C-alpha cells in the first residue's frame, strides 16, 4: 500500500517510542525513516527488524561509548538511533576533519540519515561507509555506491565509519515522495506504536475529548 511520508514518519516515531526509546530519540528515528523512504530505501523494514531485536534493552546497554575508538556499545551491539543521535551531536568533530568509527552497529542503514544531517551541521562533505555500502553527502544530492545491495539491508555491520571526503562519488540518490510499506512491516510497526496508546476507560470516553454538551444542533 502507498503511504505518505508524513504517515511513515508518524508511525515510525510512535513505533520507536513504543519500542522503548525516549521521545527525543523517537522523533529523530521517525525523521530518519522518512529520509530513507524519500531516498527509496527500506527504512521502515529496518526499523521493524530493529525494534523486536532491541525490545527491553536498556539505553546504557546499546548507547555508544564515545570515549573509545571505535565507538562501541557496552553489551556488544550499537542501537543506530542512539549512535545517530550521538553522531549528530558531535558534528563539530567531523567539521574539524576527524573520522568517527563504530564497531558492531545494528541495522546500519538507519544511520545513513544521521550522517546526512551531520554533513549539514559540519558544513563539509562526508561519507558513511561499511563493507559493501558508501553514501556521500555534500550540499547537493546524496550519492550512493552500493556494490553489494544486500549490505544495505544488513542486520549488522562489524565496522562502520563516517569520514570527511573530498569528492562525492556514486549514483545520485533519486527523490521519492511516497513509499510502499510491506504489510508485515506495517503490522510490526503498528504493533509497537500501539504501545503508546492508552487503553480506553469509562473516564476517558466520557471526558477525554471534552464532550459533555450536545454537539448536534
Amino acid at each position, binding site marked *: 500500500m502507498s503511504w*505518505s511520508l508524513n*504517515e511513515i514518519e508518524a508511525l515510525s516515531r510512535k513505533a520507536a517510542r513504543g519500542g522503548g526509546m525516549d521521545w527525543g530519540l523517537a522523533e529523530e528515528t521517525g525523521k530518519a525513516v522518512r529520509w530513507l523512504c524519500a531516498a527509496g530505501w527500506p527504512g521502515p523494514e529496518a526499523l521493524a527488524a530493529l525494534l523486536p531485536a532491541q525490545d527491553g534493552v536498556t539505553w546504557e546497554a546499546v548507547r555508544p561509548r564515545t570515549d573509545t575508538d571505535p565507538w562501541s556499545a557496552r553489551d556488544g551491539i550499537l542501537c543506530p538511533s542512539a549512535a545517530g543521535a550521538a553522531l549528530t551531536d558531535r*558534528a563539530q568533530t567531523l567539521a574539524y576533519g576527524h573520522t568517527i568509527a563504530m564497531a558492531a552497529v545494528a541495522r546500519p542503514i538507519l544511520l545513513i540519515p544521521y550522517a546526512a544531517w551531520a554533513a549539514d551541521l559540519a558544513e563539509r562533505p562526508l561519507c558513511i561507509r561499511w563493507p559493501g555500502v558508501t553514501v556521500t553527502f555534500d550540499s547537493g544530492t546524496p550519492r550512493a555506491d552500493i556494490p553489494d545491495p544486500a549490505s544495505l539491508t544488513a542486520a549488522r555491520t562489524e565496522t562502520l565509519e563516517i569520514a570527511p571526503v573530498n569528492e562525492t562519488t556514486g549514483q545520485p540518490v533519486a527523490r521519492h515522495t511516497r513509499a510502499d510499506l510491506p504489510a508485515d512491516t506495517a503490522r510490526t510497526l503498528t504493533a509497537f506504536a500501539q504501545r503508546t496508546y492508552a487503553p480506553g476507560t469509562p473516564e476517558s470516553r466520557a471526558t477525554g475529548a471534552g464532550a459533555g454538551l450536545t454537539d448536534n444542533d
Partner: protein
Amino acid sequence: MMAEAETPTIALRTPETVMKLARLGAFHQTRLSFMRQLLRRMKAEQWRFEIPVFDIDSNGIGHAVYVAHAPGHSYSLIAFSHDLPPEQRSDRVIATAWDATFTLFDGIPDEADIARLADNVPRQEAGRITDRELALSRANRSVRLWDYVVDRLAAGKQPDARKIAEVGYLMRTTAVYGSGKFGAADRDALADRPEFQAPFQVEMLSVYLTRAFVMDLVEHTARMRAPERALALDPVLRRRFGIGNSTGLGMAPFLITHPALLNNWVGAREEALRRVRALPEAPRAAISAFRQTAARARIHAHGWRSDHPGQQAKLEDLRADMIALGDHLETADMKAPYPWDRLWRWGEATLSLEGQEQLVSLLLEPHGELVDDLCETMSADEDENWRIDGAMPLSRLRDIVEDIYGWALAIDWSAKPAQARIWYTSEEKLEPRMGERFDEPLSPYEQPLGPGRDAALMHGDITASDAPSVAEFLLKHPEHRHIARRAQIAAKLPYAEIRDNTIDAAVMPIDMLRMKLSFFGACHFDPRSDRWVRINMYQNAPFPEDLARNAADDWTLPRLPEAGE
C-alpha cells in the same frame, strides 16, 4: 516640545507577554489570516470556478464537483452527499457517518477517480486516499437551521435573517485532514505551488468550496421538494451563511509540535503591530478607515454568541472595550506624533485581553501595504532549526532554560495541581486526549506536551551534571533530548514556545484552539466545553462566482449599514 519629536523606541512585544495562554486565547483574526490570504490571492490571480457535476437526488444522495482553476493548476472539491439518519449525526471525531464528505482533488477527476473516491471518502478515516488527493473532510447539517431553510425556500419564502444570525451556517465541518493524512499528498509534495506556500491553504480552499457546495445543496433540496414554488436564497441573506466548524483537542498539540510554525505566525503578527506603532503619523484616510473598522468590530462583538460562561464573560469585556475604544477615538489626538503607538499604549493600559488583541487586528486593518508582505513569512520548515547543537556548552543550555522557562522553574512541580493533567492518545480513536494524571492510569502513555515541566526536570539534572557540553549531557540523559531540542529552538525563535503550563489543573485547551483558529481567520469562537470550540468560517465572504466583481477582503466584519439589525 522637543521631547515630543523624539523617536520612541517601539519594540516587539516580548514572548513573556504574548505567549501566555490567556492572551493567546483572546486572539482574533487579522488581515494576515489564512482565509483572507487565500481570497486575496484568488482575486488577484483571477481564479476561475466551475461546477462540472452536480448529481444529487431527491433523497440528498449523490455527488458534485467544484473546480477552482488557479494559474498553473486546477483543484476540485469532490462532495459526496448522504442521507444520514439523525441518530447517527455527531460532530465528535468518533463519528462514523456524516451528512456530507469531501476530498480536495489535485486536478480534475475523471469517472474512475470518482468511483475510487466514492468507495473511500464517505468512510473518512476508515478509507484510504492517494497522492492525487490533498485533503479529506466531512460536515454535518445544523439541525437548527437546515430543515428550516429548506422548508422556507420550498414554500417560496426567504428565511428570517434573525434565525440565520442565531446559527450562521447550514453545515459544520468536523475535521479537515490535510498534509499526508490517510494517504493524501504530503505538504512537501506541493512545495512548488505558489498558491500553497502560505500555511493551511489546501484546507482553507477545501472549506471555501465546501461553503459554495452547501449553499447550492440547500437550494437544490428545496427545488427537488417543490420544483414549481421553490426560491433561491436572496443573495444578501446567502452571504450571511458561513461554514461552521467543530474543533476538538486534536488541534491543540499541533501548536506544541510545530514550534517554528508557531513562531512564524505569532512573529508575523507582532512585527505587523510593531510596524504600525512605529508610523510617525497617521494620514486622514487611514484614521477614517480605522474608525470604520472599529465601528464594525463593535457590531461584530455584539453579534457574537456563546453559551460558555467563560466566553460570555470575555464577550462582555470585549463589548465594553469596543465602546471604550469608540469613546476614546472621539477625543484621541491622532495628529500627535506616533498616534498609533499612543492608541496602542492607551489600549494596553485600558482594555481587557480580548479588547487588546482585537485592537491588534484593528490596527493592522488599514495598513495592508505596510504589513501584507509578512504573509510570506508565515510558513516554516521545522527541520531548519531542529538539529540539536551538541557542541553548545551545558552552562549555555542552563542559561537558555532559565531565560525561556523561568516561569516553569518558579512552579512547585511536586504540588499535584501543577501537573494534574496529562496528554495522551487513546487506543480507541488514535486521537489526542487530556486526562487526570492522578485519577487515571495514564502516565506510561504521556505525550511530550508539557514543556514547562520537562524543562524544570532537565534543569535539575543540568545543575547536578558535570558534563561540559550538551552532547555529553544527552549521552547520559536521553530522556531530556526532546526538551533540550525545544529549548534550543526557542532560543532562536522567540515565539516558538507557549510560556505557560499546558498540564496545569486549570489549563483551558480552548485557548490553544482559539489561537490557532484565529490564524485561520475564524470568527465567533463558541467554546462548548474547556476542550472543544465551534467557529464560523467565511461568513459574509463573497462566493466563488462573486469574487471577480466584489472586493475579496472586506467581509470579515459586518457592514455598517446593518448596524440597526
